[in-house]
């Protein structure tokens, strides 16, 4: 089959690879119908996640059709249209039973690698390095889905592939930021990043009752989507002083909940961005926490900060003093998608959550290297490049 492979730092190629096969009784094989780029892929592409191997198949956010089932699969049948959570979770361990699915004890066969990096191992993730299991990704014609009764969800009739696709990752990740960030009715919420995850965090916050939601970015086409589709307010940090604007918008208090949806390659026009960039390029820190810092400074006293963006290692000049003295609650996670996907598919079927506008560029898999270039450089208003194998 054809698959998009990472072949080196900033190098991708569509190659012929072996088809996947059922290896465990709880597996299914899915024929991929749509698979999307994600901002976190850019960290892999750029060499910021060191446990990549030339030939690895990328992609973790996808929808498709079941074409084969293992003997222990009970929930799915050949022909089912499914969306699959990007994280691989067994549904049986203590973490899964407590709805902390991305922390599954059994979804990552390479647990020893992240244990050496982080002290404990999260679950596995499709197409996201050997630290997260080395699982082949979804930018391919077919993909193997382990623990399929847990991780694959039937798409309701009436929900298009283009909408359901983002129930795999962007929508549940964003919703989690609002939910575990503690958004309550009447809150003011600020979201850093107007990509797919940031937009879904904003939508989640509104649906959880937030009175005002403000999304911060520099790409006007994304902010226009936030305004027109999500229904939140916007701030362009290239034309606004974010901290001052947020103070003004909140009567001097600061947002109740700040959600960071940017990650390790954050950009800013502040002085600390230059500092972070130099330190990261010299490998004196692995990640740029520029947006996290701003979120911490912006949050009201006693407020919550949720880090949704992906970070891999260590950061410098982390404002722990602000966290402590302002009494902030700082929380983070990879997505616990299994707890949200059924609810999100229901909301998608009622048009309460819409996502298809994120797929600004849909193209054949053969054009995926071009799609990633557009996505990385944000050319032609690209929010997400989506591939149809």
């Amino acid at each position: 089959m054809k698959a998009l492979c990472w072949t080196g730092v900033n190098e991708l190629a569509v190659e012929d690879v072996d088809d996947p096969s059922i290896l465990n009784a709880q597996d299914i094989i899915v024929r991929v119908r749509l698979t999307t780029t994600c901002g976190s892929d850019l960290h892999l592409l750029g060499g910021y996640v060191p446990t990549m191997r030339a030939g690895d198949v990328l992609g973790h956010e996808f929808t498709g059709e079941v074409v084969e089932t293992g003997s222990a699969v009970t929930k799915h049948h050949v022909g089912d249209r499914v969306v699959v959570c990007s994280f691989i979770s067994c549904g049986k361990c203590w973490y899964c039973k407590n709805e902390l699915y991305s922390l599954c004890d059994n979804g990552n066969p390479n647990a020893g690698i992240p244990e050496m990096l982080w002290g404990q191992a999260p679950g596995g993730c499709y197409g996201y390095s050997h630290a997260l299991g080395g699982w082949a990704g979804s930018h391919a014609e077919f993909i193997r889905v382990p623990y399929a009764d847990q991780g694959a969800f039937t798409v309701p009739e009436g929900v298009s592939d283009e909408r359901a696709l983002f129930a795999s990752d962007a929508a549940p990740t964003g919703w989690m930021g609002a939910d575990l960030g503690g958004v309550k009715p009447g809150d003011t919420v600020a979201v850093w990043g107007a990509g797919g995850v940031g937009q879904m965090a904003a939508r989640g916050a509104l649906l959880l009752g937030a009175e005002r939601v403000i999304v911060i970015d520099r790409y006007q086409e994304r902010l226009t989507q936030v305004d027109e589709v999500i229904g939140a307010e916007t701030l362009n940090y290239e034309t606004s002083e974010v901290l001052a604007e947020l103070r003004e918008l909140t009567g001097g208090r600061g947002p109740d909940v700040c959600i960071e949806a940017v990650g390790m390659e954050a950009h800013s026009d502040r002085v600390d961005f230059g500092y972070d960039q130099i330190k990261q390029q010299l490998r004196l820190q692995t990640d740029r926490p520029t947006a996290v810092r701003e979120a911490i400074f912006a949050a009201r006293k006693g407020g919550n900060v949720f880090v949704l963006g992906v970070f891999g290692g260590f950061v410098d000049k982390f404002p722990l003093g602000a966290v402590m003295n302002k009494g902030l609650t700082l929380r983070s996670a990879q997505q616990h998608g299994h707890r949200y996907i059924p609810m999100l598919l229901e909301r998608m079927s009622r048009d309460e959550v819409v996502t298809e506008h994120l797929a600004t560029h849909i193209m054949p898999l053969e054009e995926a290297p071009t799609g990633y270039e557009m996505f990385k450089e944000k050319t032609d208003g690209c929010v997400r490049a989506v591939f149809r194998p």
Partner: protein
Amino acid sequence: MGVKAAVAAGAVGIAAGLVARTLVRERRDSEGDGRHPEGWKAVTVLGDADAFTDGGYPAPLERLRDALEVRIDPAPGDKGFEVHARVREGAQIDDDDPEQALRTALRDAKQLFETGEILLARPRPHGHRSVSLLGAVVDKAEDKAKGEGVL
């Protein structure tokens, strides 16, 4: 991959790994391998402890039974039970590294008991695997991943 980019990517991993290693592998005075007092390693398993031992341990742990001391304790709260194990002094295990064999056995026994299967990761689809130093490091890390870590 460009040489500079490859070196930079590798440097990130090595730097992060070295710092992390000092955090998670702090050596302590003990009679074991320095990571766990007296060489004990442990996993916490969700389920009924009696079922775990009924008719012998799950196969991956049972295979090493004669070479191990095993202790099973209840875990606090709703977390199930703890399986502690260490290699008996002077015991022979065919595997090259008894400590890696023990870690692998504990992980696999827990997974088999909790989920009913040992999750297989390979073979998997992949493109051309070019030969490189960093690639070899990743391959080796993956080959040993289940037997390594801080367990």
